[in-house]
């Protein structure tokens, strides 16, 4: 009853709910760190190599949240629920936030701001090179995520730019696959999901083209 009538009652709740949900992984890491510090055993603490645990956990959530953001459009098309689209920006920005924290943790804690070493790692270690590339793809998308930027760029150009997220998804998948010692199940699953999400777009794109092409021929003949 309270609040502006134009907003359905559930709209702000879903957004706040999503925000709360997306802070849980960070809170869990903080709690596990505190458990180690205080000598309790919450979720097993962070283990004997806490730096590795944190950086991998942040990486896991980065790719999961990137997948969620990539899934918004396909889910919207299949489910026929157009209102899902309004969460796309928020979910994308959260994915970017996790990727950024993951990267900052690598720079500040794992490498302890040893810029010479960090630069060497980026150039030499293929999995880090491709991971950095993924971040570079995401950065302009985060910077142009405001409504003002959409207006300034124009919808068509903005949409074209934001296709970079597909390449970020591919980079994220390769980053994970190359990081592990040999093939393990998780990166394969994530890669498969990303591949499906991208394949659906290719499929729809081809369908649209096919639908348009005969019209063009027909109009020429006419």
């Amino acid at each position, binding site marked *: 009853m309270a609040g502006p009538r134009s907003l359905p009652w559930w709209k702000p709740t879903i957004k706040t709910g999503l925000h709360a949900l997306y802070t849980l992984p960070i809170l869990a890491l903080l709690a596990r760190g505190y458990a180690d510090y205080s000598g309790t055993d919450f979720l*097993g603490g962070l*283990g*004997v*190599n806490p*730096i*590795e645990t944190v950086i991998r956990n942040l990486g896991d959530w980065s790719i999961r949240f990137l997948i969620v953001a990539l899934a918004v459009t396909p889910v919207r098309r299949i489910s026929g629920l157009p209102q899902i689209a309004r969460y796309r920006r928020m979910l994308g920005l959260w994915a970017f936030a996790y990727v950024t924290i993951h990267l900052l943790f690598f720079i500040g804690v794992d490498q*302890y701001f040893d810029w010479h*070493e960090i630069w*060497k*790692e980026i150039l*030499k*270690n*293929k*999995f*880090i090179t491709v991971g950095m590339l993924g971040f570079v793809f995401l950065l302009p998308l985060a910077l142009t995520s405001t409504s003002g930027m959409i207006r300034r760029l124009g919808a068509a150009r903005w949409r074209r730019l934001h296709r970079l997220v597909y390449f970020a998804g591919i980079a994220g998948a390769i980053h994970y696959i*190359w*990081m*592990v*010692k*040999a*093939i*393990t*199940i998780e990166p394969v699953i994530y890669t498969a999901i990303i591949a499906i999400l991208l394949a659906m777009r290719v499929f729809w794109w081809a369908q649209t083209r096919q639908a348009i092409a005969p019209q063009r021929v027909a109009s020429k003949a006419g």
Partner: protein
Amino acid sequence: MLIRRAPDIRPSEITPESIYLGRRAFMAGTGALLAGSAIPGIAFADVEPQALPKVIKSKYTVDEKVNSYKEITTYNNFYEYGTDKGEPAVNAPGLLKPSPWTVTVDGECNKPGTVDVDDFIKTSALEERVYRHRCVEAWSMVIPWVGVPLADVIKRFEPNGNAKYVAFQTLDDPKQMPGEKSDLVYPWPYTEGLRMDEAMNALTLLSVGLYGKTLAAQNGAPIRLVVPWKYGFKDIKSIVRISFVRNQPKTMWNQIAADEYGFYANVNPNHDHPRWSQAKERRIGEFLRRPTLMFNGYTEQVASLYSGMNLDTWY
């Protein structure tokens, strides 16, 4: 270029007896506590690690801060129990039956036979050796192993002139090692190998214990290899067969990715893994990465094994 400490072990580097005795007393106390907490009536596949009496200090010991028992027993690469390093500590103790255990020794030798590991532990002169342990994943620990030089065991079986290599094999039993159920990625059972002169080197240890006790399941109970100048994956766990062979044997990680995991797998800060640098390592318990030492700091003892070999070709 990165060798910082004199690699030979000075008498002053041997940890004073009193410190070990103190640790023993502590371990004995822990053992009693664990025994007391065992629930009667439930059959565990594993018995808790048992205290090993009469362990002699070896001169092959590094004077570096030893990693804690918890660190060594909760951070393990043992893919037969899961690919996450926390999983073996959870899964292995309830599944692996380390006693009775027989190791078959065969191949190019005059006296092939078997080793009953319980007897072996009782009758051998066990040594404690504090070794550096460097994983190919660029982390490291310092571990107080208990065992017998592999050379002493090999001599009993009298390998003949055709024995150029020694091949090792882990238990092949998916019931005890659930990871072995799927051959999709990994050609189970785990196999490893050494050249004969590497196997006979004084540093190469057949380990049956850790921190003065028998090995925990997740560390490769009841008997495993320790080759401290090589990456950890050479240290095959839960061994059931040792064979003397003419040709270089197939080894597990080498079969999966030969360009990434060589047969020799000597710790070498100058030869990077194709996907990551081996120049530095994170010692578990330390914040900053430390430089990795050539042959993991054991150049003095092992460099002669590889004289004339290009270590970039034979990685």
